[in-house]
């Protein structure tokens, strides 16, 4: 090894060590505090206990809000999955005039009309529809925002599935919906799984939409309840916050690990966000 090479080697590992520390440092608290007998803001080696999880069960909103997150994620994902599968299948198989322009326009709109930028009209629309403080309103707004991308990605999957099965199913007299359900869906399963995971992750972490559209504490999802834990009222309860954070984060992290292992894709280009 020449001097230059070893310097490069050392430089590379120093850089990686520094970056690793930078990214890991804030995350360490999530691993230590939930199991610490006396959790503080600082990261420290925990005096192991599971007692903190008791506060989670005792808090009236903690578990309920996680359940609300499940409801929102399930509702939104179901709508996105069904509507996107129908639409992308039709767009993939039938040449509708202006289809490509339509797809690109939708994609453009979904990235332009973001939750933040369209906060005001969305809030007013939901008010006018009488859906303020109803989870349905949150689900519809989230689904509307996720659908264009879901259709765009799914159409790519649908394009690459073979058509010969559909032809034979048709020969045997299956209806279009039957073909979609029993022939196309099983083949397009990886695509549908990708879209489901992506949609769940999107909804699970979304703060702004439920924050502005829901009022009652018992309807809030975990993202909003978590925020109220450290902003509303006096000294933050660190035992509660740390255990809640952990429980709230585990599903998306687990899903990422699962998808990464199963399909080997790495949350490519914005599967998050």
């Amino acid at each position: 090894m020449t001097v230059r090479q070893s310097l490069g080697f050392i430089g590379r590992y120093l850089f990686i060590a520094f970056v690793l520390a930078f990214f890991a440092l804030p995350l360490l608290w999530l691993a230590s505090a939930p199991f610490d007998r006396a959790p503080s803001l600082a990261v420290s080696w925990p005096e192991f206990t599971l007692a903190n999880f008791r506060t989670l069960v005792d808090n009236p909103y903690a578990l309920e809000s996680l359940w609300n997150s499940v409801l929102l994620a399930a509702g939104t994902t179901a709508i996105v999955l069904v509507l996107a599968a129908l639409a992308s299948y039709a767009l993939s198989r039938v040449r509708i005039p202006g289809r490509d322009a339509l797809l690109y326009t939708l994609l453009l709109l979904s990235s332009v009309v973001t939750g933040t930028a369209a906060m005001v009209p969305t809030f007013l629309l939901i008010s006018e529809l009488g859906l303020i403080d109803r989870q349905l309103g949150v689900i519809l707004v989230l689904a509307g925002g996720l659908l264009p991308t879901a259709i765009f990605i799914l159409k790519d999957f649908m394009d690459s599935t073979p058509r010969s099965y559909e032809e034979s199913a048709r020969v045997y007299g299956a209806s279009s919906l039957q073909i979609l359900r029993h022939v196309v869906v099983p083949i397009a399963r990886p695509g549908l799984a990708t879209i489901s995971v992506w949609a769940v992750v999107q909804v699970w972490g979304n703060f702004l939409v439920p924050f502005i559209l829901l009022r009652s504490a018992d309807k809030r999802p975990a993202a909003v309840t978590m925020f109220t834990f450290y902003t509303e009222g006096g000294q933050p309860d660190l035992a509660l916050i740390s255990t809640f954070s952990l429980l709230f984060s585990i599903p998306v992290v687990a899903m990422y690990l699962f998808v990464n292992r199963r399909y080997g894709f790495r949350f490519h280009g914005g599967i998050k966000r």
Partner: protein
Amino acid sequence: MTAPLQQTDAAPAGQPEQPRRRTAVDDGDAAGLGRGRAAAFVAPAMLLIAVFLIFPAIWTLYLGLTNWRLTGLAAAEPEFVGADNYLDALNDPAFRTSLMLTLAFVFFSAVVGQSILGFSLAWAFRRLRQGIRTVVETVVLMAWIIPASVIAFLWIALLARRDGTLNALLGTEGTAWLLEYPMQSIIIFNIWNGTAFSMLLFSSALAAVPPSQFETAKMSGAGTLATLRDVVFPNIRGHVLTNTLLITLWTFNVFAPYLITAGGPEGRTEILGIYIYRVALKEGALGEGAALSLIMILINLVVASVYLRLLRERKT
């Protein structure tokens, strides 16, 4: 939603794939769907998109022309006030301050921070052992996928004045980072939060650079900088552009800093999204907020149009 513009960028060198897809698309209607049924399949999705995505965007234009308020008389019967809201917004020093803060935030955290750190990581990964690479990648990705309200608190804990981990490490007990350096804090936070995307994008871009070109550079004795300039950059120019535009768009629409600083202290971290939230939903000036929303949508439109034009050029 801060929507992804999709993973198309992951395979820019995917030209060989194109012809196959083209024919697959063209070979027609194997399922015998017909245009009528196809339209019926597409309609529900389009309806939802039309009502909850397209309509709000167009409606903003009208709302911004009224004096609609959250409460009071103007809430019941909003009046038409013409372009007042737009003029007020543009002339309001608070809006200009917020816009400048947003530009600084986007420039330093995304265009500079995330891009450079993401590229450096991808570059370093090439000669790193697989095990270490996996660990680093996973940690960077965690920062990206953990819900915003959780990571916001992790940063509050990290930067806390009393008991904060950073103060304990640096021996700067008593420094209130979020009060003394609020903008710097949320910029560093956003680099931490979003670098994963650039890292993934540049990793796949570098993997697509032909190894023979690296060999040639090495044989001719080119140093790292020369290699980057003459071999790497010409190959990944498209990715650099894609990355810059996407993270610009996303960072411009970020709301997460609200969870850490709520725009404070004294509005010093009040980036555009947070400013709109305060004006429209906290103070109740919906008409003015709608005007601001429209301005933000238009800025998004400009960035996104440039990106989609690029994407389309590459696909055809």
